[in-house]
């Protein structure tokens, strides 16, 4: 990845983490259920930049950990784990780069993220008596709807402006002589 690419990754991580931790929670529902970090991380995976996705997840996780309100969610480890699972999925199961595969990938990311939170909630509260809360199902459902909508829009815009996902079909001229 070029230097410009890395700068974009770092800036995107800082901006999305600050949005998720310090901006969006102040908005009323359903706006507060937007979670841009995982969406952008999945976008980096879809753009075939697994290293970029990992660095993005790491920086964003550290920043979210600094300004989190609930104790012990360990966003750094959570996001890195989710991105690693997404990279494996994108290389083994969801290998095509369509809008459907992108949607499926972001839903999978959100489910893995919730699984991680539920496990930390279970072990954290029973073993360490930590105050860790898992978001209600209604919020989670709204987040998934946002994920699908925003990822579809991002995918279409990327395809439109960068022609990144364009499948080129070789055409042979035929001679009907």
């Amino acid at each position, binding site marked *: 990845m070029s230097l410009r690419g890395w700068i974009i990754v770092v800036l995107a991580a800082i901006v999305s983490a600050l949005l998720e931790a*310090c901006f969006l929670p102040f908005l009323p529902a359903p*706006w507060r259920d937007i979670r841009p970090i995982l969406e952008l991380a999945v976008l980096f995976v879809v753009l075939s930049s697994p290293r970029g996705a990992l660095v993005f997840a790491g920086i964003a996780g550290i920043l979210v950990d600094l300004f989190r309100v609930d104790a012990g969610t*360990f966003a750094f480890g959570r996001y890195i784990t989710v991105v690693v699972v997404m990279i494996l999925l994108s290389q083994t199961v969801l290998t095509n780069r369509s809008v459907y595969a992108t949607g499926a990938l972001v839903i999978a990311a959100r489910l893995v993220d919730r699984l991680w939170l539920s496990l930390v909630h279970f072990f954290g509260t029973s073993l360490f008596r930590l105050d860790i809360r898992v978001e*209600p199902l209604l919020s989670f459902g709204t987040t998934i709807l946002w994920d699908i909508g925003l990822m579809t829009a991002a995918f279409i815009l990327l395809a439109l402006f960068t022609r990144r996902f364009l499948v080129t079909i070789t055409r042979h001229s035929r001679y009907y002589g």
Partner: protein
Amino acid sequence: MQARTKVALVLAGTVGALLVFRLVGAFTPIEEALRFVTLPVARAVSTLGNGAGTLLHGRPDAVQLRDRVTELQAQLSTLTVDYVRLRSLEEENRSLQALTGYLRASGYDHVSARVIARSVDPQSATVLIDRGAKDGIETGMAVIVGDGVFVGKVTELKDRVSTVTLVSDQKSRVAAALSGQHRLFGLVEGRGNQVARLTLVPQAEELHSDNVIVTSGTEDKIPPDLVIGLVNDIQGKPTDPFKSAALQPVAQADSLGLVSVLLPTALRPETGGKTP
């Protein structure tokens, strides 16, 4: 073993080790340094978020406004009686306050703070403020807005930030008194979704709708007479040992931007912990 599996195992081990280190607080100095650097940006972003939130909350519809007017008119008639009675006391109080100042008279100094993050879970009413242990804040201190409206207490402390658990949080418990009585009257328990209840009120005590509930002053670091909310709906049979009531908090958790943490004078950093 495949290279991919190896990488996954190494990564899982690293993340696990980092999690353990973090739980034991090994990264605290690094976190504090990073927080110091990024705090101004977080403060600016949260100010923007608060402004955007106020805009997006929008205006209530006509039916809601009509109901609200009826409710407020009922409250006004009750409060008018109290107002006349309190007017004479206020005159006397004002002359005293002019001499000593509210904070000196109550023995409490305050630290102003900005809300920089909040919990998105409606059951959990917690916010993060941009002041911490280095500003003289301690766990258990009262957090107020405006002229002494109690919003919650400090429950978790870092060097430069602290977590405030608001009155409506499910884990919040505040010792309460009836305004003007100066004795423990009941307990205000948070129920989530910006709802709180006044509980454990002895059946013999008189409790009416629109009574003003304040802090009792029996808790360490929380002074008396900070307004918590108004009594709404009283519940409990005459045979029950205690009665309870729905409480309408005076401070709106949605619009919290600037708050003050009450700092007992004896705990001011510059006095070195000596009682003046």
